């Protein structure tokens, strides 16, 4: 099963969206990498910045509109029109988070702490920060640096490295 000739040594993961599924895909992959002894560098940009913005990080939601895979419990259809009702998005997101908690998947801030505890590094995109008028102080304290795309690519060199765009 394992390919011992060219083992993966480093992953550079880019998260550009701020929904639960996009952010958690990123966090699970980054944490999974450090748990396997693989170096992980995570770059948050555009709406993905919500995941590392103090005010937003634990309030991320999943889209109940424009999400055809969205179903009610039991697999029942979930008409998009229901998704526009105030409170539905929050309710659905709370349900998703509680199902994750049962599987021992932590809230965003704690998940990020787990990744950095293992040596993973968290970065923010300068361009997106300028666009959203965010300052370094608005970000989670352990964000290592605010980078340009060039800075990011400079970190992604080396044998056995992969760039992953969630």
């Amino acid at each position, binding site marked *: 099963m394992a390919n011992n000739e060219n083992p993966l040594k480093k992953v550079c993961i880019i998260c550009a969206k701020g929904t639960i599924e996009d952010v958690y895909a990123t966090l699970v992959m980054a944490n999974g990498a450090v748990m*396997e002894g693989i170096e992980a560098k995570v770059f948050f940009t555009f709406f993905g910045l919500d995941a590392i913005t103090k005010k937003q990080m634990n309030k991320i939601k999943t889209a109940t509109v424009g999400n055809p895979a969205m179903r009610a419990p039991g697999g029942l259809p979930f008409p998009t029109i229901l998704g526009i009702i105030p409170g539905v998005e929050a309710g659905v997101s709370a349900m998703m988070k509680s199902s994750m908690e049962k599987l021992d998947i*932590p809230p965003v801030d704690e998940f990020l702490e787990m990744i950095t*505890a293992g040596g993973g590094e968290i970065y923010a995109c300068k361009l997106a920060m300028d666009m959203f008028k965010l300052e370094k102080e608005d970000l989670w304290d352990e964000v290592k640096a605010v980078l340009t795309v060039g800075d990011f690519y400079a970190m992604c060199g080396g044998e056995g490295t992969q760039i992953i765009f969630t």
Partner: protein
Amino acid sequence: MAQKTIAGQAVDVNDEGYLVDASQWSREIAAEMAKEEGIDLTDKHYEVLEFLRNATEKGETLTIRKVGKSGITDIKGLYALFPKGPLKLSSKFAGIPKPASCV
């Protein structure tokens, strides 16, 4: 499955070196497995191994988060004890199956 002699004791291991039967485990086996990975086991290491063995016996799914909340050590400490494999290596040394969880 193969037979292997670890710390003078014949045990059954799978192709990744995990014990097939957790009851064949001993502290000496753990120490020798760890030495192969360049780790000298301390009392703290053994506390983690015992925790993992007890949790597995109860049928719990193991995660590093659970070990981090065990009161033995935090997650950073867990990485320090078992570098590059906080759950994978510790499970191996504890004589339990390779963890099947993603966190």
